[in-house]
């Protein structure tokens, strides 16, 4: 790929004590790409994600964001220009929906009127009713609504990159599907570059353009779902087979309704 990556990991290693959480990983994420990092717990996928906005610092290797070595960028400024969607929202419970969404623009010193207009725009974008939700506290929202607010908050300062840490993992299946699809179209519409962590290969295949598979800190494989099918790694193949096997079992258990 001739153009420079939006996020580039080059031989990144990070240990916590004796545990090598990320081991010599190199990975490029192109502009506009939707990458899913798939792996079990303890695979190092979360660490890899947090290295990108310096919530965690690498032991060795280089990370670039939009061509710049992140070590040369102030971490606070870096985080303000990268959207981050936390597991189960990470909303501040004492702040209203509007204040949660407007937090990063506020930190950036944007005028209050601009922030207010931006909040309304974002509520519409993530399909929440402005009048019903704007002034509520997060505790008054459903899990799906909270995560929509989480997405809106990540997008508030118009980032070009969004990092997502198992964003839909804790939601019920219907909400999860709806939210995934909605985010996918936002990603396309806004021309974002998205890196999403998930342990669910089905979700990764359905939402992402490319998939990176991690295990024990190592990057086992990366590519489109079709490219991954050609992998010779047994674990990668096993992961890829899971969705189809589930469908086969479902088909066997459920009566066939209508024509497929």
């Amino acid at each position, binding site marked *: 790929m001739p153009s420079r990556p939006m996020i580039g990991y080059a031989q990144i290693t990070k240990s916590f004590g004796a545990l090598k959480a990320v081991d010599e990983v190199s990975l490029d994420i192109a502009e506009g790409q939707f990458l899913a990092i798939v792996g079990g717990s303890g695979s190092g996928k979360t660490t890899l994600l947090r290295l990108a906005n310096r919530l965690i610092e690498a032991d060795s290797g280089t990370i670039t964001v939009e061509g710049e070595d992140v070590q040369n960028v102030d971490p606070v400024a870096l*985080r*303000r220009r990268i959207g981050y969607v*936390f597991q189960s929202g*990470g909303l*501040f419970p*004492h702040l209203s929906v509007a204040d949660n969404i407007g*937090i990063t623009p506020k*930190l950036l010193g944007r005028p209050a009127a601009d922030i207010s207009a931006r909040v309304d725009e974002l509520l519409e974008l993530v399909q929440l009713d402005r009048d019903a939700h704007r002034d509520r506290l997060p505790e008054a929202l459903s899990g799906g609504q909270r995560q929509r607010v989480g997405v809106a908050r990540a997008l508030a300062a118009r980032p070009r990159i969004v990092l997502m840490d198992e964003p839909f993992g804790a939601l019920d299946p219907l909400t999860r599907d709806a939210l995934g699809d909605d985010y996918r179209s936002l990603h396309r519409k806004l021309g974002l570059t998205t890196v999403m962590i998930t342990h669910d290969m089905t979700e990764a295949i359905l939402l992402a353009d490319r998939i990176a598979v991690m295990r024990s800190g190592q990057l086992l494989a990366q590519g489109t779902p079709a490219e991954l099918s050609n992998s010779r790694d047994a674990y990668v193949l096993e992961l890829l087979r899971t969705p189809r096997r589930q469908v086969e079992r479902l088909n066997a258990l459920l009566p066939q309704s209508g024509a497929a």
Partner: protein
Amino acid sequence: MSLLADPRWGEALTHLPDYLGNHVRVSLAALALGLAVSLPLAILTRNRPAPRAILLALASIVQTVPGLALLALFYPLLLLVASVTLAWFGVSFSAFGFLPAVLALALYSMLPVLRNGITGLNGIDPALIEAAKGVGMTARQSLVTVELPLALPVMMAGIRTAAVWVIGTATLSTPIGQTSLGNYIFAGLQTQNWVFVLFGCFASALLALAVDQLLGLIESGLRRRSRLRTGLGAAGIAALVAATLVPTMGRSSQGYVVGAKTFAEQYVLSALLRDRLQAAGLPASARSGLGSSVIFGALKAGDIDLYIDYSGTLWANQLHRTDIKPRTELLADLKASLAKDNITLLGELGFENAYTLVIPKKRAEALGIRTIADLAAHASTLSIAGDYEFFSRPEWAALQKAYGLSFKAQRQMQPDFMYAAVASGEVDVIAGYTSDGLIAKYDLISLDDPSHAIPPYDAILLLAPKRAGDEKLKATLQPLLGKIDIATMREANLRASGNDANSSPDAVAKWLWEKVGGQ
């Protein structure tokens, strides 16, 4: 007949603006200082386990020191600091009253504020702190926007606990010279004026409740982001401070301050001195309930203008003398020594309030005891009680040495309760005071001291250095000198030990004046 109709409620009420005002000021100043130190410490140590543990341990240790002792310790400490600053920088300050009270109470307030502050800040979901970082907050922004608001309920609970503690403990600042609602309680306990004791307890409890509720209002306002509630709570506290300042505004100069120690005779005599000064047109107020180690320093520093002490007390405690001299010689020596500090020993009132060993008359007759020397033979089978300082005083050492006294047991007791205890046989002998009216009331006798082991304790009138040349003051006090004999003082003390309206120090002072000089 009814408790509510007692005129002493009215008398208590007249002191309220002064006592309550001082109480509120010292409590809120201490609380503010305590918060100003504890909150930043809680914030600084929230992610540092080692200093946090040390800090909490220190605060806990402070908490185990009884409030009264902590307050009392600050007085000599500040005296020392004041003498150092005087020597090094030429500036001194008063170690009396407000300053030691504020410092000790502030220290006392630290534990709940620190503990709850640290607990509140550490109890926040780490995912939220991570989220604060992730959306681009600096450490300070995270603290102000996320951590402090989330820790607020727990922190405020600590602040409210501290406020209640400080307001309660401030009643104990009376003996170090800080006027407070404790003045009611100390005076009431010493003069058996239960109306005053109750009044003081109720007033401080009500104050504590009011401040607690106002802080609660501020807390709920901050939590619900309601400016109205926060404002109301803050306005309430501001109003409380303002209301307590108003009555004291007009009289920034208190005129002459008459000191008194913590027992009934002192309350009566200070009331008498105050009345005499006021009758002569000199503005005067009484500052009662001062600890006996505090009061002399307060006179020397000019925090009080005059008070009554006892020759033997000063001889032992201030001049650190252990030898014993005849009455007149001791007085002359004392006068000369005090003059070096520019303190005027104006003269004797006419009676002595010495330690004396007291035993029920019947018991003495049965045992055939008249003197302490007679007592010594029986001492090994008897128990003795004294006030809190007696057994560590030189008189006790001198008595033991002179007569070879060795009792079966020795106990410390509140002076007011000693006489009843010896009359009922709970103890066999007590170290009482010669001027105490209860000796006659309970049919007790005071044993002779043929070896003169106990030094003379003439009641003497002392004037502060700044009043050394005050001829009008001296002329006003002159008529009291030599006028109060031991029988009169005993009767006055007996009256003061009653628990009806005629037993208030003010009432007894009036009686005493009529008896010795007034018409």
